[in-house]
């Protein structure tokens, strides 16, 4: 079955052939030559998990197994360590000390917009991504996507060689071909030559392309990526007459209104916005706690944080925006069927009360009108220049990308394009289906595609060029606020890939120029620094060019805005909203198994996308979760499973992009359905759709099946007012056991005593901690089938609860790592003492002593222990071995594992401190989850140090432990959640 394809080691052994696609599937030269050792590998039944995947051993092996049964057990008992080789350097590099990691600053790119990261490197192997504290888009934190960046580098499915007409070729051949092509192009001044890129924020790449175009004046440069940002630009053009980029200062705002904007969950600024927002969620903040209103079709990470959330279909969101504008005295005629009038009125009043200290944000997927209205409202409220700033666009050449793509398709169809150079992106898969890009593409005589994977687009191109991963290449990019960020390679390209910059310079006739040379050359000019080398070194070291962010641009509202405001669309019987997937985005991360298995923040689904709809709509359409339906829009249709989501707007369904890949790699190929097929270039994010039941069922793998808290006080919440009245609210109804209630003598934890607090008031449930933990602790991916069987391995589980009316539920997130109980129920029942308490209060898990009775997991009331039911760790794929954290054991089959409070980091800090003969400082030990958390919800430290941040938080009245009545004495505790509702709306 499908799920089995992903079971266990998500990649299978290196040599094994992909099952997908009929065409030639080469993985390596050995395979082409069918070298005997390859054939061995290919037939190797015992590649980890092979057995399980084939769903049982072949009949031929039954007898073996019969005999083997007990012999096996005996044999495995006694083993002798095989001799091991040590290979020192011939010439040792200066800065490298074996056994000590180094950190380099570079950037993670989302939609070509940079957010700064620090990459941990062991002996030249990048292993872990951390945020760059100096970088405005990161401030030290990362998104889950950024955490998986390093997995992308080592993905064994990345394309490894140049391919020409589907056969292995080489760069040499391509350079020759490119040189010849260049001559031809020069001859006809570039006529018929097109370059298609994703939007370019890289100053150097833009310069290179401009130079190329100057040389070939007839050539044209098109830009497209699925998340175009066109609507925002058009909205800004409506409002101000020019396409501007809008920035928000959430820490300055008392009242925030999101019109379907997923401020904290999506986009290159999400991490920064979340941090700013959270800074005003603390009740003790001098400026007071902010208030968030969210209007959206499908519950998002942002919606879950809202003090007031209103589920509206896309069309209703637009009507609400108009009503809101009208309510604030703008000359907009509110539609008759505007929804939730009192609600809007209350919000308007609240905004009016906090002029200059509020902001209204329109979602990227909302039509230009909504963006224009939002800007107008901000203008009206005097927020512009206070909480809302307009800057020049981040793209070097801002264009209407959909228009640009349409133009290209038209020219292709008309045969006006001879040579098409596609730099990155995967338009064949990602272009809206109604454009028929794939067919049009094949009209071009020479098609060249540079990309990380040999994907759907490469398949239709004459040349496929392997792209260097951003961690392998030199380049630069702008952050959400325009800050220039330099990207430096951490490792030689694994597969001789080249960067877009280098490929452009091939066409510019300088094939031998390296990315570094090009970059330095460009910035030597652009930096305008007296001492360039100094500038260069500090820019690389800091990972950004200080002071390079865009200055705010003064703007004035166009008087005729409201006259030119397009009318809202007519109501559709059933509305389809299309969104990027929270995990695999627009499909570019689809082959990263970490992200596939990351439970999506609200649905907790893994390994699939689904048709999300509200309980009421499901009832009307007589649908149950897991039903397979056929969605049709614009004459095209897909078959997709249904997932019922409380809090979704009625009469509206949501689907996510990024799935249904036909040529993505072992992980992603063939899973989920392709929502691009429903997308139309005119209304990419919202169309009307027909839904038909097929009567078939489809198994979706969710990590959480029960959504109610059953009245157990796990997440505790109060309104700000209640909290002020009664700060100890979190402790009401507790039955704390007496302090001396134990059969064992009390343990005094002298020295260090580690503990953690998690602030539910700021936790977004975004999942950054989950992936950070996975990367830090070598946690395996188990595949859809195993997740469906309830065997996910994540050490930190983000519980999500719905409470109240399913049409407008309260949504709670609660990250649950190991509680490191002082009276740990797991410890007393382990027969081999494989899990015991440390003198510093850690609940230690000793893998090599574990025999796997699973008694500890059964006896853990928090259910945070994870068992290796199969050999989940991948022992066969070489590149994945490079990814591993050398400080953490790779667990084998049959042992228990769980959160260790990143004990390897504690030990590293302790040894460093002991060597300097000083105690560990507060903040010196930062767990992986804590480091990644965008909102700093997680605090870790030494409880015995009264000055430690964690010790202070433990004294906070909001601090409480869960299931404490069991006398487990958890060391991980929570800070109760607070809401800051609008009294006017509470009454509704």
């Amino acid at each position, binding site marked *: 079955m499908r799920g089995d394809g992903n079971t266990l080691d998500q990649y299978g052994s290196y040599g094994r052939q992909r099952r997908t696609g009929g065409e030639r599937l080469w993985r390596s030269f050995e395979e082409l030559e069918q070298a005997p050792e390859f054939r061995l590998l290919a037939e190797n039944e015992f590649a980890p998990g092979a057995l399980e995947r084939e769903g049982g051993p072949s009949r031929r092996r039954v007898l073996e197994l019969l005999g083997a049964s007990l012999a096996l057990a005996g044999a495995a008992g006694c083993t002798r360590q095989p001799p091991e080789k040590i290979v020192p350097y011939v010439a040792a590099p200066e800065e490298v000390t074996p056994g000590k990691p180094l950190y380099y600053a570079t950037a993670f790119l989302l939609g070509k917009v940079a957010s700064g990261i620090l990459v941990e490197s062991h002996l030249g192997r990048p292993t872990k991504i951390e945020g760059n504290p100096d970088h405005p888009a990161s401030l030290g934190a990362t998104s889950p996507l950024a955490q998986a960046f390093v997995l992308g580098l080592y993905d064994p499915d990345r394309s490894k060689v140049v391919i020409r007409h589907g056969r292995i070729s080489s760069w040499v051949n391509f350079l020759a071909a490119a040189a010849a092509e260049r001559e031809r192009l020069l001859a006809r001044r570039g006529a018929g030559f097109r370059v298609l890129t994703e939007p370019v924020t890289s100053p150097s790449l833009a310069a290179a392309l401009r130079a190329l175009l100057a040389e070939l004046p007839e050539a044209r440069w098109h830009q497209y990526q699925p998340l175009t940002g066109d609507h925002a630009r058009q909205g800004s053009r409506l409002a101000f007459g020019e396409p501007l980029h809008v920035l928000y200062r959430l820490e300055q705002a008392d009242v925030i209104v999101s019109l379907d904007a997923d401020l904290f969950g999506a986009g290159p600024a999400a991490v920064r916005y979340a941090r700013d927002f959270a800074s005003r969620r603390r009740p003790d903040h001098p400026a007071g706690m902010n208030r968030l209103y969210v209007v959206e079709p499908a519950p998002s990470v942002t919606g879950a944080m809202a003090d007031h959330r209103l589920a509206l279909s896309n069309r209703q969101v637009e009507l609400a925006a108009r009503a809101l504008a009208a309510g604030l005295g703008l000359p907009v005629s509110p539609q008759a069927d505007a929804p939730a009038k009192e609600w809007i009125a209350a919000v308007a009043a609240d905004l009016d009360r906090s002029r200059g200290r509020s902001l209204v944000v329109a979602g990227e997927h909302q039509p230009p009108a909504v963006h224009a209205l939002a800007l107008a409202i901000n203008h009206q409220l005097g927020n512009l220049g206070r909480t809302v700033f307009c800057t020049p666009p981040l793209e070097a050449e801002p264009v209407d990308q959909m228009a640009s793509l349409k133009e290209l398709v038209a020219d292709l169809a008309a045969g006006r394009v001879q040579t098409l150079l596609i730099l990155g992106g995967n338009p064949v898969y990602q272009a809206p289906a109604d454009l028929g890009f794939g067919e049009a593409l094949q009209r071009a005589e020479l098609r060249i595609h540079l990309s990380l994977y040999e994907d759907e687009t490469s398949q239709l191109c004459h040349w496929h060029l392997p792209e260097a991963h951003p961690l392998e290449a030199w380049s630069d990019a702008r952050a959400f606020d325009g800050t220039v960020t330099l990207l430096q390679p951490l490792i030689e390209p694994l597969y001789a890939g080249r960067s877009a910059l280098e490929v452009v310079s091939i066409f510019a006739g300088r094939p031998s120029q390296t990315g570094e040379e090009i970059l330095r050359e460009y910035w030597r000019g652009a930096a305008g620094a007296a001492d360039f080398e100094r500038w260069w070194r500090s820019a690389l070291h800091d990972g950004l060019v200080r002071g390079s962010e865009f200055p705010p641009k003064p703007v004035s509202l166009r008087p005729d805005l409201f006259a030119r405001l397009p009318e809202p669309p007519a109501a559709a019987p059933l509305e389809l909203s299309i969104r990027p997937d929270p995990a695999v985005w627009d499909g570019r991360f689809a082959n990263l198994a970490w992200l596939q298995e990351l439970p999506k923040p609200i649905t907790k689904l893994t390994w699939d996308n689904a048709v999300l709809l509200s309980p009421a709509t499901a009832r009307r359409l007589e649908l149950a979760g897991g039903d397979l339906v056929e969605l049709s829009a614009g004459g095209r249709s897909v078959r997709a499973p249904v997932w019922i989501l409380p809090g979704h707007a009625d009469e509206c369904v949501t689907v996510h992009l990024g799935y249904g890949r036909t040529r993505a790699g072992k992980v992603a190929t063939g899973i989920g359905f392709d929502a691009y097929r429903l997308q139309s270039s005119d209304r990419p994010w919202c169309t009307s759709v027909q839904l038909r039941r097929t009567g078939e069922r489809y198994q979706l793998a969710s990590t959480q099946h029960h959504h109610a808290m059953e009245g157990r006080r796990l997440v505790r919440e109060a309104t700000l007012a209640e909290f002020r009245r009664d700060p100890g609210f979190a402790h009401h109804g507790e039955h704390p056991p007496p302090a001396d209630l134990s059969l064992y003598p009390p343990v005094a934890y002298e020295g260090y005593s580690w503990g953690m607090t998690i602030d539910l008031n700021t936790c977004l449930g975004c999942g950054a901690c989950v992936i950070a933990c996975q990367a830090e602790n070598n946690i395996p991916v188990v595949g859809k089938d195993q997740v469906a069987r309830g065997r996910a391995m994540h050490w930190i589980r983000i519980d999500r609860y719905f409470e109240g009316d399913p049409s407008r539920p309260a949504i709670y997130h609660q990250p649950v790592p190991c509680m490191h109980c002082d009276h740990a129920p797991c410890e007393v029942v382990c027969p*081999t003492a494989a899990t015991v308490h440390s003198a510093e209060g850690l609940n230690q898990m000793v893998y090599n002593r574990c025999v796997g009775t699973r008694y500890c997991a059964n006896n853990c009331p928090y259910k945070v222990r994870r068992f290796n039911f199969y050999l989940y760790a991948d022992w066969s794929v070489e590149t994945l071995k490079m990814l591993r954290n050398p400080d953490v054991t790779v667990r084998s089959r049959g042992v228990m594992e769980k959160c260790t409070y990143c004990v390897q980091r504690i030990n590293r800090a302790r040894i460093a401190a002991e060597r300097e003969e000083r105690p560990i400082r507060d903040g010196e030990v930062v767990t992986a989850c804590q480091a990644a958390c965008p909102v700093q919800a997680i605090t870790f430290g030494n409880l015995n140090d009264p000055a430690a941040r964690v010790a202070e938080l433990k004294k906070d009245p909001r601090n409480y432990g869960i299931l404490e009545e*069991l006398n487990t004495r958890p060391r991980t505790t929570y800070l109760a959640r607070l809401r800051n509702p609008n009294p006017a709306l509470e009454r509704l």
Partner: protein
Amino acid sequence: MEPERPQDPVATDEEAPVIAPGHTYQTVTDQISAIVLTRKTPREWLLGFTLSFALVMLLLYSIGYLLVAGTGIWGINHPVGWGFAIINFVWWIGIGHAGTLISAILLLLRQEWRTSINRFAEAMTLFAVACAALFPLLHMGRPWLFYWLLPYPNTMGTWPQPRSPLVWDVFAVTTYATVSAMFWFVGMIPDLATLRDRSRRRAAQIIYGILAMGWRGSAKHWHRYETAYLLLAGLATPLVVSVHTVVSFDFSIGIIPGWHATIFPPYFVAGAIYAGFAMVLTLAIPLRALYGLEDFITARHIDNMAKILLATGLIVVYGYLMEAFMAWYSGNEYEWFMIRNRISGPYKACYWALLACNGLAPQLLWFSRVRRNTRLLWLIAIVVGVGMWLERFIIVVTSLHRDFMPSAWGMYYPTAYDWTTYIGTIGLFLALLFLFIRFLPMISIFEMRTIVPPAERRARG
């Protein structure tokens, strides 16, 4: 099945004979030893043995695949970390109780009616324990390291963790297995000697001879024998209570609602005897018919066992009631939810079936007509066997699948390999039993002779 025989003695009061009238030493010895030595192997035996042996192969296959692939081939997951393996372990161990109880306790209580059934009850015990002992090993993630549960001098400078009930299990079960094995073998020595003397074939003579350990039946031998047997009985008696008490600790030491209860030890012991006697009946009734042993396993035996079944059944039902009552009376929300979840949760069918099998079915045994109707009794015994398995399923699965954190709740579905392993052990159990009745005296010859009425003893022969 057995035809109702007119001459079946119907009197079931104390005076009723425990051996049919008209038997002499000679006839007793002849009839029992003949089964092993002279009588032709019945076709039913061949059929039964073939079937059960096939199941043993199935078991070996399942184990082989388990060791190659890992415990993932079973239905276990988070949160249900224990499934069939532990259920079957407890079930088999329970079944393994009747033997020692009959042999040891009834011996000490001078219940002479035990004599005809104790031998194969003990054998059954032994085989059941053998099946049970498999599971704790197999359910481990790394079974080849089982010896880490034993305290032995090692290079790691570590010891097992004495607070864990699993460590107690190791000792409880191994002790029980050893003692019941010795008890069984010692009890058989005189009969083995008889077989040695009566067998005609050389090989048989030698094998039985070696097993008889040079028994000559001298007064000295008899005297030592009696002492040894009595001592072993004394040793075995506390074990009947201890083993299942310790097994119940596996659960009651745990913190999980549905496990964490002080009632477990007595309730488990009763349940074990209950299941044990059910199994004795399940086997005795057909054997009795197959080998025409009505003279030795008389209606009184059957009747007594049925009564024990009823008594222990009532104790078990009391256990269920107390569990529910305490859950409500304690006012503990988790305990109370656990009971409601059993009654109306996703596994409610199993729970109600359990109550029907263990609670209602045995109530029929209040009627002596039912107790005397071997067919019906046999059915009830089987139903009880199933019920006791369901009880363990309910305890293990429903307690784990929904405990404290609703977010972590899950379901448990057994896989094909769960079933094959379980059925495989049933095959192993039957195969061993078939071999036993074919090659060893399933009824204690010399003990039967002791209960031959004096008048009859000095008959010809």
